[in-house]
């Protein structure tokens, strides 16, 4: 077996003794189950005959491309991901880091397109494919598809028409993909229903509308499975909805808990929300969070307060908008929060993936959250208690804050959007945004896309109205031609190892991933899908997909072959070595 065909895996930390014992037990149980599964499958295929394996297929295991979809909670706890990519960010850390090493800096030049899948897309795809056992699951608006991950051929298609009457992001019918547990697939619809589909057929098992009472609610995200629950967020934060994170029983669809991100009268943090303004305060939760099973904590970012640019109706810090929330996944109870942009006036959502990192910081081992925020600062927090540890600005033109104090709270530069408008950097689109960051634990390197641009933000207050956006503004964009960068932040030096300017006329909205082979993978600003050297940023290979990349990449393997996949424009592309 040559190195080019070998799939290697790395692990980043040694688990505790209890965890190891538990894993041994799981392995033993899995083995017995697999044995039964193989016998059953062979028996069905050839009653009474000799048991042989399929060509190009190996013994049944949840890690193999064997076509059996049955994702166990233990499969979701594997870190880092390898053959399967069973959730939006791959694993619970949000690191979007694959342990597959078949594609290397030396051979990546031979990477070739394997297939293209063209769903019925009504807007640019934002999905990250999920792959389990050689089956890929993607969404396009309210449609879900299962594909043969080797060929891109459709195995099933769940059809659901787009919803009429939605506004803003949900009205564009974006959808970022599925979650999977057991033999079931979960997805959110544009009008905020949680669907449970049979992963083997695509048939609807149940359909739960989970945001009612305000027509401006919608959903665009992928759900997150935690233990036996499906956790969802909500969209519409620029449109005067009240944000929440909610968890549903994965079996029955029954609601188990709901954490409202905007406190009601009488609740802690309500001071900013006089009267019924809390019902329209925003703080939406439109990207999947991350989860630390050891600490039993769910980390979930919240969006901007509403109305976006008019702070006069929401005095104070506007909790819990633009925050990172640490929630108990069993009860939805808030453990702690960290607010990046108190009383935000610039649309600085904080939903960007809070990446779980175990690393030394200034010589000491830490349980960290590393996240690049839309407000232009990269933050490092202690994830056991939310304590601020470090920040680094990454937008050169940043002008809204004079800096951060010792607790990480920004020192305002006093820029207040008014009728005339005020020039703010980064622009309302953010110094970074929902496109994925990535952390390579072997290189201690945190990768993310940033965007240098400014905008003139105006405030023209008007009351909330259903069916209409609540931006309370007319935005005059300042720098339409901003500059995009792919950044590598080194956790050892607490400085950038490199920043790679993206030249091109199409502002990229593509996320970043990395691999154990030292590769960093992303979409650039010229509609190219790029693989670069993670140590230097030097591009090693690219492929012109000819469409705007509005999604984040992932990697998987089937039949001992590693693939990279990305959604671009109205298509999903898959690449592998010849």
């Amino acid at each position, binding site marked *: 077996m040559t190195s080019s065909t070998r799939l290697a895996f790395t692990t980043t930390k040694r688990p505790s003794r209890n965890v190891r014992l538990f894993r041994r037990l799981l392995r033993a149980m899995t083995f017995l189950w697999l044995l039964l*599964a193989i016998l*059953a*499958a062979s028996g*069905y*295929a*050839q009653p009474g*005959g000799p048991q*042989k*394996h*399929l*060509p*190009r*297929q190996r013994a049944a295991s949840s890690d193999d*491309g*064997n*076509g*059996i*979809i049955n994702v166990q909670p233990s499969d979701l706890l594997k870190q880092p991901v390898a053959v399967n990519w069973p959730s939006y960010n791959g694993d619970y850390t949000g690191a979007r880091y694959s342990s597959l090493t078949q594609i290397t800096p030396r051979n990546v030049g031979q990477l070739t397109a394997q297939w293209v899948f063209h769903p*019925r897309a*009504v807007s640019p795809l934002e999905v990250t494919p999920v792959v389990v*056992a*050689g*089956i890929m699951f993607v969404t396009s608006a309210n449609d879900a598809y299962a594909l*043969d991950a*080797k*060929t891109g*051929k*459709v*195995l*099933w*298609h*769940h*059809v*659901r*028409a*787009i919803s*009429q009457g939605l506004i803003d992001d949900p009205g564009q019918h974006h959808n970022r993909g599925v979650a999977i547990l057991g*033999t079931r697939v979960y997805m959110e619809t544009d009008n905020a*229903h949680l669907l*449970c589909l*049979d992963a*083997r*057929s*695509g*048939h*609807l*098992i*149940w*359909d*739960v*509308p*989970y*945001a*009612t*009472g305000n027509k401006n609610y919608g959903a665009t995200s992928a759900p997150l499975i935690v233990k036996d629950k499906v956790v969802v967020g909500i969209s519409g934060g620029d449109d005067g909805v009240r944000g929440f994170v909610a968890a549903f029983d994965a079996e029955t*669809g029954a*609601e188990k808990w*709901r954490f409202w991100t905007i406190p009601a009268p009488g609740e802690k943090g309500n001071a900013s929300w006089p009267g019924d303004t809390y019902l329209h305060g925003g703080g939406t939760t439109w990207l999947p969070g991350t989860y630390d099973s050891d600490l039993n904590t769910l980390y979930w970012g919240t969006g901007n307060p509403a109305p976006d640019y008019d702070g006069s109706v929401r005095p104070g810090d506007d909790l819990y908008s633009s925050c990172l929330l640490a929630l108990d996944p069993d009860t939805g109870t808030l453990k702690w929060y960290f607010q990046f942009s108190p009383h935000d006036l610039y649309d600085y959502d904080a939903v960007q993936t809070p990446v779980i990192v175990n690393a030394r910081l200034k010589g000491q081992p830490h349980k960290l959250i590393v996240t690049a925020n839309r407000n232009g600062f990269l933050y490092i927090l202690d994830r056991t208690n939310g304590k601020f540890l470090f920040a680094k600005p990454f937008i050169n033109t940043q002008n809204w804050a004079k800096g951060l104090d010792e607790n990480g709270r920004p020192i305002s530069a006093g820029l207040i959007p008014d009728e005339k408008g005020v020039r703010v950097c980064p622009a309302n689109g953010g110094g970074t945004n929902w496109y994925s960051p990535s952390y390579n634990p072997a290189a201690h390197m945190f990768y993310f896309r940033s965007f240098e641009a400014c905008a003139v933000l105006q405030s023209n207050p008007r009351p909330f109205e259903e069916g209409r956006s609540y931006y309370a503004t007319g935005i005059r964009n300042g720098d339409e031609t901003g500059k995009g960068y792919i950044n590598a932040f080194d956790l050892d030096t607490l400085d950038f190892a490199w920043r790679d300017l993206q030249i091109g006329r199409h502002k990229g909205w593509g996320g970043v991933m990395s691999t154990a082979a030292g590769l960093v993978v992303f979409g650039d600003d010229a509609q190219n899908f790029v693989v670069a050297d993670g140590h230097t940023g030097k591009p090693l290979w690219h492929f012109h997909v000819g469409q705007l990349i509005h999604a984040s990449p992932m990697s998987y393997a*089937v039949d001992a072959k590693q693939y990279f996949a990305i959604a671009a424009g109205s298509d999903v592309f898959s690449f592998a070595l010849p």
Partner: protein
Amino acid sequence: MGNFLLLGTLLMFGFTVRDANAQSSNTGPGAQRFMEYCAGCHGADGKGGDKAPPLISPSGRVNRSDSDLFRIVHDGTRGGMPPFAQIGDANIQAVLQFLRTLESNPASESASPETAVTGDVEAGRALYFGKAQCSQCHLMQGEGGFIAGSLTNYGRNRTADEVRQAITTPDSPLVPSSQVVTVTTKGGQKLTGVLRNEDNFNLDLQSQDGRYHLLARSDVTDVRYTEHSLMPRDYGTRLSPKELNDIVSFLVVASRTPHVKKVDAR
């Protein structure tokens, strides 16, 4: 318009559209033909576009009978839609079948007028999940199997007679993605499953345990096509007329019950 509708009523076509055994039929010829001939004007989701009106009503329904739709596609309309007789009746039927799949899932309030059933719905439910073994393969409102098509919405736009016919004479027509095939691999192994996909290079089979067998044709020495789905062909004799009628009644009535769980925001 009056003449137009009268004509549609007079020209009753004897075919029924059956996809009870189809996986999702949206990868099949209907979807392909729809994308080829219809989507350019009516939109890929059938919701209309600049050139043509929506095919799906605001309540998510295609408010025409299959025979009406067949005639419109076949002959065109005075409003400017060209005739599509040249693509052949089979292709038109496939398009109509796909069109039904575009209907949204939550059952709307407007049930078809011809919903009258004469059987015992509860007895039909018991048979469906019990003796008749329908639920082993077919999902109904979240309960049942996966290898065959979901029947949650199946009876919504079909008459009791159409449903009965589909049960007693399955595989007419046979939906390609429902066909059972037996494949022999180069290693001599025989695999039997439902043919979800095939082309000159690959075969995707799904066996009844749910497993997908993603095969390269170069690894296969023989493919036997059964020309049948997994649907038993003896329901006409296995079940009494009353039992059959009860099951049909259950399918028709259950399909008109909303399948959305209510959740009250706290």
